[in-house]
């Protein structure tokens, strides 16, 4: 099983779960399983055409999937997918 790490701002849509185990063979399948289990997460990760939104980066291991084979990137057992959103806090 591969693992998806859910970033803090999106955990309110996963019942506060910080990780998600997936059997998906590609990033697309893995994200598909994730949003299937947590439907409220969908519109925050995917746009109307089911593409990953531009304010979210998705990584396999330490690499941006845009530098690999994008959403078709293969995912092996024990690999980690990171969803990385922009966060803005600092001063307030």
């Amino acid at each position, binding site marked *: 099983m591969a693992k998806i790490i859910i*970033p803090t701002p999106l955990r309110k*849509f996963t019942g506060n779960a910080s990780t998600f185990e997936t059997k998906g063979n590609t990033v697309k399948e893995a994200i598909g399983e994730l949003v299937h289990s947590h439907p409220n997460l969908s519109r925050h990760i995917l746009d109307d055409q089911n593409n990953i939104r531009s304010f979210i980066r998705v990584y396999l291991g330490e690499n941006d999937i845009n530098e690999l084979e994008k959403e078709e990137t293969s995912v092996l057992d024990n690999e980690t997918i*990171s969803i990385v*959103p*922009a966060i803005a*806090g*600092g001063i*307030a």
Partner: protein
Amino acid sequence: MTDIKLSAQEMARYARHIAIPEFNVEGQKKLKAAKVLVIGSGGLGSPVLLYLAAAGVGHLGIVDFDVVDDSNLQRQVLFTVDDVGKSKAETAKKRLHALNPHIKITVHNTRLTKENALDLINQYDIVADGTDNFPTRYLVNDACVLSGKTNVYASIFRFEGQVSVFNYLNEDGTRGPNYRDMFPEPPPPGLVPNCAEGGVLGVLPGIIGSLQACEVIKVITGIGEPLAGRIFLFDAASFTTRTLKVNKNPKTKITELINYEQFCGILPTNVSEVKEITVKELYHLQVQSTDFQLIDVREPYEYEIANLEGELIPLGAIAESAERISRDKKVIIHCRSGKRSADAIRELESLHGFDNLYNLKGGILAWSKEIDSEIPTY
């Protein structure tokens, strides 16, 4: 560095730096020659400024227009109880001068805007970005790219922090990735709450801001490998760290400063007005025992801090809770300041056709100020 001299006092002060072989007197002189602009003197700015001042960065600029508030003291370690109500930047300057009288500190007691950003940033060598909102993040990034300055970036939310070195000058003269290469567009308003709404563990900016200060020192002295082309993520809750690669995006084009509020959707051009009610009018409705429904769209933890005994339906759940909202009497919706409740009304009106919803102007903060000072503000 030949024209930079360290006095005997400075040599004694920085002895533990100078003892590091890679650092030596040369590294300390580089710090003394450096000019760093720290944007925001709050959670991140506090450790950044304290450590850069202690380390002997010769000229520190502080951009902050805010004043110290009680709720800052949980993490903004520059300030004390006596400072509440005073200018953050001026207070920081006094504290830092007491820490290190050998350095110059310039206060910019102003909000960073597209009008002043380039002028301010051009006066410095490096920028440390510790702001708290997306428009300023993009403004700082774009101004750094346009003026050719390295932007040492850090950001925090609850238990999570991010650090990176953007627009770093490589040895071959090219620039490393910047914030827009990582995040071409901001998230829509409301998805990622700021620290005031979302909360932050007080010690987290201490950790992340210290890493930010460390990267500033590395960039100035040329020691080690800066966190350029990479982003460091820290989750204090699970104690996990990740360092991910950041690549340049050929589509990123920054040619001028823009309207960042609009870019971040904070001043959308076509947002519909919502009907409003003031806290005084709400008070009269209560006194007259008028039949109305009061809904609170904040988060449960906010409700625990203070509430007006409204029904709690957090903004994220409002669209699917339409059946709990009355259609045949006045419904007043409130949040902390009135912004989230306005968003809730727009969502309910557009998805479910409500026409009886009123936004409580100024939210629970206005209620505390004008009606009942026993209601705590946060």
